């Protein structure tokens, strides 16, 4: 190839490099280069330096190759003219063995400093009220992965650690004060320790704006941490291949200020509201007795009845079936806790909006989900032991009753939160 | 398993030829193959060590070991290495009949060891430690089972050389064939010594 081709090659790379840089500037929700907390910022600083160092080395080598390729270009040999036959140069070679080793040594020092900083935790207990009593709470969330959604468990009354859980099956975790899924609510500005595990296969918990990943391994309780500078919503995605709906196993961290966090705790600690007209029915169910709804019961009350007869073999609502609940008929033994479903803004592993952007209930998706979950998100609910929500063959009337009931499991989050957490 | 290939290459070792190292191809190949086998047993033994107490409350192999019994069968296997040496030295001296005697003795000692292993396995199974009981038992049976399979292949190779010799096709000048079978046999014995020490003797 003649010179123009080499030049084309060079131009091609320049264009590629330009595109690469411009590409990083786009508005990706999972962007790894836009840290929003001190841990991810620390990682980003390290990665910036190594990208610069790597870029310089790469550029040097490319310039050298292109220069040499052009300068010493001779075409097909048509004679016995040979260049000087050089077999090597020990000094040079030792030099370029030591040089990269020294560059690496410098990078290694920076890496180790960052690595141990990222893996350390600080004692940052905060004052919270639990059932009106003050608690010194070291912010910690137990993160449990299962196909294909995340559960977040808050032990507010005792400062649980990974060591406490050693040997405990993730299918048999101690009861938590608050159990939610898909959205982790955390106080902003605080370091949140995560204890990550799984109930079935390996998953990986990743909120790029706040920190790197940590795998959720069944039988292990891996420590990790996140911290958000400011209140806001930070998107995440399961990043260890976990089967059919791996792509649709997402999550969000919603960081709120300390006041809002306390309000959230207060709301979550309450049992679910029982719709008017269903009180007797629910009370009877809790006592293992039977009762019937009045004829003029509201849709929400009928929905509570439908929940009791269709959903309680998997789902838990505190104040309804918490006395009789023994776990879900699932491989993981778990299904999302629905006590305050409507206080969240997403469902089905954070892939569907519970509220529309205008703040109204997303009745369409919720109904479609109850009609045939697998149509919206692939699952293995027809396996002998299901994985994922099965199609229960609910009638349209039952579906609309259930939607009415589920929408009462609030309180409804703020418009700001609904807006910021919209997924598509 | 690739081990089974070994008898097939035996006939390629009849003669000494010029090689870059002076060692015949077949013998060198066996050494290389045994190097690979080290990693196979290394992987199996490491896995067992990781798993030996993992049972979620059910009985693990260390609970049911009968050390005296296994010591005896280990001794039997160890003795077979000695008879293997005798078989080879007899063939090298040209005493084909004596070599056959020692060869069949080696195979029989190996057979006794396998018999002991079968007895041990069935006893463990009766005592509630089966292949599918827990990770510790799965790792134990797989490790010792793989070793047992190696011994069985070794016995097959020994019997094959015995038959060859009986038919008059294994003479002094082909003693390398027996030597290579012997290499394999000694390796399998050494693996057992490691395995017996690590699995049976080192406390849990």
């Amino acid at each position, binding site marked *: 190839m003649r010179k123009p*081709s080499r030049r084309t090659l060079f131009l091609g790379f320049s264009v590629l490099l330009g595109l690469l840089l411009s*590409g*990083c500037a786009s508005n990706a929700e999972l962007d790894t280069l836009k840290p929003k907390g001190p841990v991810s910022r*620390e*990682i980003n600083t390290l*990665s910036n330096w*190594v990208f610069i160092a*790597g870029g310089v080395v790469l550029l040097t080598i490319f310039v050298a190759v292109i220069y040499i*390729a052009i300068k*010493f270009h*001779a075409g*097909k040999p048509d004679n016995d003219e040979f*260049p000087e*036959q050089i*077999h090597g*140069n020990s000094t*040079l070679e030792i030099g370029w*063995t030591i040089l*990269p*080793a020294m560059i*690496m040594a410098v*990078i*290694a020092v920076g*890496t180790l400093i*960052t690595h141990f900083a*990222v893996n350390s935790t600080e004692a940052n207990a905060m004052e919270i009220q639990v059932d009106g009593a003050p608690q010194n709470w070291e912010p910690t969330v137990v993160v449990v992965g299962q196909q294909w959604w995340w559960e977040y468990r808050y032990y507010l009354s005792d400062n649980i650690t990974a060591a406490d859980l050693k040997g405990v099956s993730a299918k048999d975790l101690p009861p938590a004060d608050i159990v939610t899924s898909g959205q982790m609510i955390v106080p902003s500005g605080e370091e949140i320790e995560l204890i990550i595990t799984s109930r*079935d*296969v390996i998953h990986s918990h990743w909120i790029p704006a706040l920190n*790197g*990943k940590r795998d959720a*391994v*069944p*039988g292990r309780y891996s420590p990790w941490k996140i911290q958000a500078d400011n209140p806001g919503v930070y998107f995440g995605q399961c*990043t*260890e291949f*976990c089967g059919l709906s791996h*792509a649709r196993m997402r999550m969000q961290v919603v960081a709120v200020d300390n006041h809002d966090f306390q309000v959230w705790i207060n709301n979550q600690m309450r049992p679910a509201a029982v719709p008017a007209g269903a009180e007797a029915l629910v009370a009877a169910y809790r006592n293992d007795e039977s009762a019937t709804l009045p004829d003029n019961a509201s849709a929400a009350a009928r929905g509570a009845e439908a929940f009791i007869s269709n959903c309680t073999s998997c789902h838990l609502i505190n104040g309804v079936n918490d006395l009789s609940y023994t776990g879900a008929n699932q491989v993981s033994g778990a299904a999302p806790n629905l006590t305050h479903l409507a206080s969240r803004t997403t469902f089905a592993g954070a892939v569907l909006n519970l509220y529309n952007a205008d703040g109204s209930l997303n009745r369409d998706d919720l109904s479609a989900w109850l009609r045939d979950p697998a149509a919206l998100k692939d699952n293995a609910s027809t396996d002998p032991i299901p994985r994922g929500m099965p199609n229960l063959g609910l009638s349209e009337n039952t579906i609309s009753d259930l939607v009415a009931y589920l929408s009462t499991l609030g309180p409804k989050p703020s418009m700001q939160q609904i807006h910021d957490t919209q997924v*598509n | 398993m690739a081990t089974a290939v070994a008898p*097939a*290459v035996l006939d*390629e070792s009849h003669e000494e*030829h*010029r090689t870059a190292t002076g060692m015949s191809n*077949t013998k060198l*190949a066996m050494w290389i193959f045994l190097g*690979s086998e080290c*990693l196979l047993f*290394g*992987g*199996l033994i490491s*896995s067992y060590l990781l798993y030996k107490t*993992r049972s*979620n409350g059910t009985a693990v192999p260390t609970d049911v070991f009968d050390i005296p019994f296994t010591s005896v069968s280990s001794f039997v296997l160890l003795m077979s290495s000695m008879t293997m040496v005798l078989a080879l030295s007899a063939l090298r001296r040209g005493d084909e009949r004596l070599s056959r005697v020692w060869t069949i003795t080696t195979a029989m000692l190996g057979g006794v060891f396998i018999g002991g292993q079968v007895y041990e396995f069935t006893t463990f199974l009766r005592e509630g430690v089966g*292949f599918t009981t*827990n*990770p510790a*038992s*799965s790792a134990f049976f*797989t490790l010792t089972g793989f070793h047992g399979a190696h011994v069985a292949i070794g016995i097959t190779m020994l019997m094959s050389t015995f038959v060859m010799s009986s038919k008059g*096709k294994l003479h002094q000048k082909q003693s390398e064939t027996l030597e290579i079978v012997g290499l394999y046999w000694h390796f399998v014995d050494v693996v057992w010594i490691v395995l017996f020490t690590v699995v049976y003797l080192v406390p849990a």
Partner: protein
Amino acid sequence: MAIVEKPLSLDAADVVVANRPLGVLTRPKGGNGWRDWLSTVDHKKIGVMYGVTAMFFFVVGGSEALLIRSQLAVPNGRVLSADVYNQVYTMHGLTMIFLFVMPLAAAFANYLIPLQIGARDVAFPRLNALTYWIFLGGAIFLNSTWLVGGGGADCGWFCYSPNSGVIFSPSHGVDFYAIGLIILGIASLVSAVNLITTVINMRAPGMTWFRVPVFTWMMLVTQFLLLFALPVITVALFFLMFDRLFGSQFFNPDTGADPLLWQHLFWIFGHPEVYIVVLPAFGIFSEIIPTFSRKPLFGYSFVVFSGIAIGFMGWGVWAHHMFVSGIGPVSVAAFSLSTMFIAVPTGVKILNWIATMWGGKIWYATPMLFSVGAVTMFTIGGISGVTEALAPVDSQQTDTYYIVAHFHYVMFGGGVMGLLGACYFWWPKVFGHMLNERIGKVHFWLVLIGMNLTFGPMHILGLQGMSRRIDTYSAGFGFALWNAVATIGAFTIAFSLLVFFFNIWKSKKDATHLPKPGPDPWDARSLEWMLQSPTPEHNFDVVPEINGLDEWWHRKYGYDDDGKVIRIATVEEAAQKGDAINPHLPSPSFWPIVVATGLPLIGYGLIFNLWLAVPGGLAVAGGLYAWALEPTDDPDGPHGGHHDDHGDDQPVVVGAESNEES
């Protein structure tokens, strides 16, 4: 030159056994029909069969890649269902690694190693045939899961437990994965034993270790990596198979198992595997770049030692695949450091290749274009690899498309482009005609542009946070643009492959009216170019005595008093004529293919019905015994005149000079 014959020492009994009629399995006599290909033990024919099979699976794996890229071309793609997508991406990885790159490298290893070290064949020609047939059987077995196993494996090529368990992957795909890889592993292991023995034992007289061509050196390191890595993955695969088929508890966390056991065993194999894929290409660059720069390789010993260093250090870095698995910060730090420093020997090689070009008279024939392109592409992959070695940075990058970009630059940019260059370089040696240079250059630029379009954007996607192994993504993530570009790139690569096939077809057609390339069309340096093209069936008329590195070049050129290179012999004078009379060759045999047929049968038996394993076991055992009883050389073979029973390992016709060592 004397013709030395080995003494006749075949026992009469052996001859009787060999002549016993065996129906269709009567010992074949050689020739050129299909039966000859089935029974050949010629390392060159076996090499060609490896190559053809590998290219076939390149098309298969490439089609799978196109399906993946079609699915991801736009947000919320629905070309494939999630289930099928998972199967396709798993089989893409398995096919490309185990059925394309490794066997294509094996093709060159088989063909070239005996030629580069001056041997008549490999140490065990029949074992060599056996490894090919086992490989082919394993490849067919692994892919037959599409038809009989209820779909491909859907657990990724890494197949992490417990997601690979029966509960989470109920089809037979993972069973085929486990048994298929065991079978392929047996093939590679036997091949490794054979090739290591060949290189250690069968070097021509005078070929000391520091006169061994770099390609052979790198292949030797590769074979050692295979030798020690394969048993580890075999252990893991047996565990997986036992769990799935016989209910053992290796990977069931509910009974106390640790899922990380699989990861450790897998990556102790899996990381050396990376070097298994890329070291052959390092060897290829080290042959091609000096040839087309008209200079010796700069720093031969540094290149060789850095290859060996990579081989050793490759064992101490496996857990960098597990930085986020939760193995503890101290382990992570240790593996992070070891991984950073493996960049050093790799960097040394790159600089040595560049220094080889410096001051040269560079001829950009297609093989050289591919090699220079591959070195630069590999450099990109190497540097992105360094960023991943930094554990904290990796916690953001791992399991994203950044990793996909990285290893495709290494394996496709470095490995595959290197191997494609090797096809152009050695084509005349294998087939006796050149590949068309003009089309070759079009091919090169299409590959280079295509791969940068495909894998370059994946760096950005990864940094934007696109996870690996997702079958779909939302529009809101901002991944659409670069995925579209990558898909265009993938189809460009596919088109380049069609150009390559067209080149093969056209070059063969044109060969009839073009001048023959002769033994040494590139003015190259190593021994294979001393032989006629295509290589005569018996390789060397007389085994050459080796006096130095780049022996063949030194037979053509010397230095005058001023140290200037002068020609001392023409190619015609220095090359061997390929006219040896009665060259002794190992005889063909049907037993390798019989033995190889048994293994997949045992596999099907384990999965479906144990009775099926009986004929399989009989084929293996019976085949091995028939093989052992069959003398290495057929007394009625086609090269009559004399027969003897020296092993497969010795050429009968050796140069007189070889006697000094015998």
